[in-house]
């Protein structure tokens, strides 16, 4: 009996049910508290559209977080890639916009990966240093002025453009995780780098690939972000730091639900839950500081309920 229960508790369906229960719980709570301002179908559609932008970044971050790495330069790259994409779009239209964002994003990933591999210092330190450099670079590239996306190039600003692009990103993530060696090797490196190396895995190469993939997805996120907001302003002084955390929350969901073999679904639903919580507080009229406290708290509760180690196990 207990074996069957154990098996059930490790199944994909169980993971899915957990996610749905959490989703319904938070939706239910806010719907009861503010029935008029929150949770109509059109509201939900709007929450979904904002959350999928972060989900795309969350998918990218998944590649490096499972390897035990971290990246603080995600926000800086969103800004830099958006600015590069918008500038190129003025000359080459959609092609310049899309390739500018994706190319700049991936190139930044390559630079981070190479530096991380060669400097041999923790990823957190490398990316904090690079975040400062990329922020300054963005100011330089933007010429100190706000960059606005041409109104004719805003296909990705709303449905169906944003849904299509994000959907393609999720499919790509699914393909990479399930149909290439990259997903397996990233997990293997995260589990035990030394053993992975002994299995013939080129750890440096796959860490580089991990960073490049992350920032390719950041490039997609840049397309969606600047399309949604229509403008992008480059700022220095670690102002991009806050942009790192929203996608990271989805990644935490993905890592927590990896055991159910459904990281992408968990990232998407997880970001949607965070969005529901955030918008629920907006509907309640709570100040932003309270919203942040409760959003952060909810994340801790959710992840500790789903990903908490066994009693006595060491968690770092």
């Amino acid at each position, binding site marked *: 009996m207990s074996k069957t229960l*154990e098996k059930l508790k*490790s199944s994909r369906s169980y993971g899915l049910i957990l996610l749905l229960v959490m989703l319904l719980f938070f939706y239910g709570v806010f719907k009861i508290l503010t029935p008029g301002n929150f949770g109509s179908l059109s509201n939900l559609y709007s929450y979904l559209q904002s959350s999928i932008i972060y989900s795309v970044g969350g998918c990218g971050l998944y590649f490096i977080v*499972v390897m035990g790495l971290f990246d603080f330069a995600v926000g800086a790259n969103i800004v830099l890639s958006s600015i590069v994409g918008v500038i190129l779009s003025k000359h080459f239209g959609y092609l310049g916009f899309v390739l500018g964002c994706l190319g700049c994003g991936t190139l930044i990933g390559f630079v981070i990966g190479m530096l991380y591999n060669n400097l041999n210092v923790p990823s957190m330190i490398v990316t904090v240093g690079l975040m400062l450099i990329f922020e300054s670079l963005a100011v330089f590239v933007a010429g100190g002025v706000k960059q606005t996306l041409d109104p004719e190039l805003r296909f990705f600003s709303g449905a169906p453009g944003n849904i299509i692009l994000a959907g393609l990103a999720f499919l790509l993530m699914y*393909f990479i995780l*399930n*149909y*290439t*060696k990259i997903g*397996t090797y990233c*997990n*293997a490196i*995260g*589990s*035990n780098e030394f*053993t*992975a*190396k*002994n*299995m*013939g*895995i080129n750890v440096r190469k796959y860490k580089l690939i991990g960073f490049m993939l992350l920032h390719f997805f950041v490039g997609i996120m840049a397309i969606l972000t600047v399309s949604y907001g229509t403008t992008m302003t480059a700022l220095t002084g670690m102002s991009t730091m806050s942009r790192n955390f929203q996608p990271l929350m989805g990644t935490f969901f993905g890592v927590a639900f*990896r*055991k159910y*073999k459904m990281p992408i679904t968990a990232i998407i639903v997880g970001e949607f839950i965070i969005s529901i919580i955030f918008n629920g507080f907006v509907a309640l009229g709570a100040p932003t500081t309270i919203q942040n406290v409760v959003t952060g708290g909810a994340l801790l509760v959710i992840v500790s309920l789903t990903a908490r180690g066994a*009693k*006595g196990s060491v968690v770092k």
Partner: protein
Amino acid sequence: MEKRTLLVADSIDKRFGITHAVDNVSLTIDAGEIRGLIGENGSGKSTFSQMLCGIYSIGGGTFRLDGKELHVRNQVEANNEGIAIIVQEMGTLSGLTVAENIFLGHEEPFMHFGVKDARAMNKEGQRLLDEYGFGHIKAADMIDHYNFEDRKLVEIVKATYMKPKILVIDETTTALSQNGRLELYKIMDAIRADGRTVIFISHDLGEVLSHTDTVTVLRDGEYIDTVRSADMTEDDLKRLMVGREIGSAYYRTDYGEPISDEVVLTVENVSVPHEISNVSFQLHRGEILGFGGLSECGMHEVGKAIFAASWDRTGTVKLADGTEIDSITTAIRHSIAYASKDRDNESVILNESIRNNIVLPSIDDLASHGLLSGRKLTAFADKHATDMQTKMQSVNQFVSDLSGGNKQKVVLARWIGKGSNILVLDSPTRGIDVRVKQAIYALMADLRKQGKSIIMISEEIPELLGMADRILIMKDGVINGEFRRDPALSEEDLIAKMV
């Protein structure tokens, strides 16, 4: 049948810093042979075999397999040359499925234009698991859902499904139950019958003699001899390993000594959910109290429970003065020491120096006005490590560089340095060679004479019979039998209470 040389090791050499781990070892191994490779901890047997398998680079000399010189840089390249290894530690990776673990580094047959066919991989993985008789393990499941032994079985499949010319089995049997061992022996026999070769590394000399054709002995990194298993006894092997006679003073020889009436520790109705139930006993001054049983009988949890390292423990553990042991801090403060069976994960801090490992629980005692003197710490650690005859370059050496036996000496040095009066030693000689074993037994006997009390948890029945004043046998989480030290007591008596 004509013998064919499969592997030639010519002047294989390896140094780690100033340690000469393998010193110009030359040997040959035939096809269709099971070769035992034995030696004390630090004799170089694991280093030698790990060079063969690409885990370590070769310091000097050459390996030739079927006449071809080997230049392998990792396990996958070794696999491609026909060499596989099952390692002592956990060799599977969390976060991957069972099938992904089996085929890690060998995904090519399942890749089509860079796209992985996970379904085919799972199907093939399951076919192999079923073929090996491990059908209860599902290829598509995450490996994290399985226990240590099942994960070892997955490693066995991983290492052998490609039919390697040479399979190295490095101290694997200690992780397996009797059934798992029997499965492994069957696989070894099948490899031999197929004209391929096994290199079998184990400290269990009885097992080595029973399941090998020949045995190579290494000592201090040097090649000593290769002998026919059928011509040898365990004592012969011990003599070759150590370089002198060792049999006579292995265990205690005294019998009939009364156990003191003075109770130093009382354990009453201690239970840990799913592990042990209502365990009660008393430990006396100067007593070695043995705990025996099958691997999952709960005896290992008893050690943790006494040290207050168990979760959700109920019942009481009390010292003679009435102090209740309800936390690890209280246990240490009141002179209780604990050495875990899982030495690397629970007893030593691998990436720390010998000095810091030894001084850890004694830091407060060594501090003066809250300040620590590096010189004092070093002198303290050096004294106790030296007393234990730890094989080291200095106390600044990292524990990760030490052999299993020397790691255990560091653990014991730590608690002896702390002056602990009650020592809970779980599997104190697990994976340890005969010479260090002998030293640990001598130390235990000496501590006993000093009036210290020892709880020795052991899966080795001869060790229990040879060292304990009293033996408690556990079965299914409860105490199922008690025996007093007696020369007439036999292994069968204990086994009858275990199963």
